[in-house]
């Protein structure tokens, strides 16, 4: 199972508490994880990636294993610890304010 941590507002929107656990068929990449997330929670479509371009929304970041993966190719394999469920994949809202 892949573990995904969502920002609070998206947890509220998706009506989930804590981590989301997903079955991801095939290679575990950012694209496949987000595809599985949006398939399980359709209300999240468009809130993390643009509906049409599938580009990451500008004020969101993707972290895992203490790395910023936001600029990695969407089809690059995620770290083994994420694929094995040992570490979560984090969707993070940019900090705002002064």
């Amino acid at each position, binding site marked *: 199972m892949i573990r995904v941590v969502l*920002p609070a*507002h*998206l947890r509220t*929107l998706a009506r989930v508490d804590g981590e989301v656990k997903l079955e991801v068929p095939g290679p575990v990449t950012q694209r496949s994880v987000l595809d599985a997330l949006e398939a399980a929670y*359709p*209300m999240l*479509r*468009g*809130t*993390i990636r*643009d*509906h*049409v371009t599938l580009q990451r*929304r500008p*004020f*969101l970041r993707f972290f895992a294993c203490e790395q910023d993966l936001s600029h990695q190719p969407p089809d690059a394999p995620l770290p083994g610890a994420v694929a094995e469920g040992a570490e979560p994949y984090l969707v993070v*809202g*940019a900090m*705002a304010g002064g």
Partner: protein
Amino acid sequence: MSRVRVLVGTRKGAFVLTSDGTRARWDVTGPHFGGWEIYHLKGSPVDPDRLYASQSSGWFGQVIQRSNDGGKTWESADNKFAYDGPTGTHLWYDGTPHPWGFARVWHLEPSLSDPDTVYAGVEDAALFRTTDGGGSWQELSGLRTHTSAPLWQPGAGGMCLHTILLDPSRAGRMFVAISAAGAFRSDDAGATWRPVNRGLQSEGIPDPSAEVGHCVHRIAMHRSRPGVLFMQKHWDVMRSDDAGETWREVSGNLPSDFGFPIDVHAHEPETIYVVPIKSDSEHYPPDGKLRVYRSRTGGQEWEALTRGLPQSHCYVNVLRDAMSVDGLDPCGVYFGTTGGQVYASADAGDSWAPIVRDLPAVVSVEVQTLS
């Protein structure tokens, strides 16, 4: 006994205010969707418990919410607003062509006859429609592909389609307004459009009487006379007696003819309301006095309505969608401020009292009269 439900959109959530017909005591619920900007929420005229809300965020983009029980519970609707076909370009602030890009839904206008049909006005300016209760949205692209569209240019607040008026007496006729392109009318249910801006004068554009390019802030109509339109423009309060074919200024004795909202009394089609703001850069009332102005003559002659409103040191704004009326008798009038107050008058504006004082900045106010 009739009841009133006031739907309030704010910078940090939605609030639902309800009262019986006396409009003396109010029940307040919210925030719904706390932390999100709620540009607009509105109920179906034929099924008042069917509500739609535009929920957006700089982080997470656009969400559409739908309620089937008057706002007690909500469910997410489709939030995909994809322009139909090639998006083309409009003018950017520097005068260069700029690709159309969806930013948010500014206004939701439910159909007058079908609770599953809703129109959505969006930024960058375009009109969308759902016919399945928000299950999916399709663009009525005849507006965005109008021959003048490549020359449209955003105002400081973005190039938004913020006003949608449906003609109750003539099927297929509707009006929209876009900042800063102007007013447009369709007579074929949104398939084709033409500008209806003749008579507008805007000193801030190269040709003050151009066919398009006017910063229209809001248009209002009375259901009994849909050919008569009232407009609050960037500057100037205007009136059309021929469904937008021509406009004439009715600012009259207003202390400032700059402002955002305009609305019409529920039972008196010649009684209209505006909230003058000092200027385009000083978005607060003249002299620090919050005054609603009422004309009982369809414009030109205005009276200040002050009782119950702050008359010193008041520097809030009232945004374009933040005024509404109920259908009771006497007519109730409501508006919200950027300071978080929602004021109500149960006597057509003669006196006012705040329903709530300390909400986040109010973006929109809509009123439902429930039997």
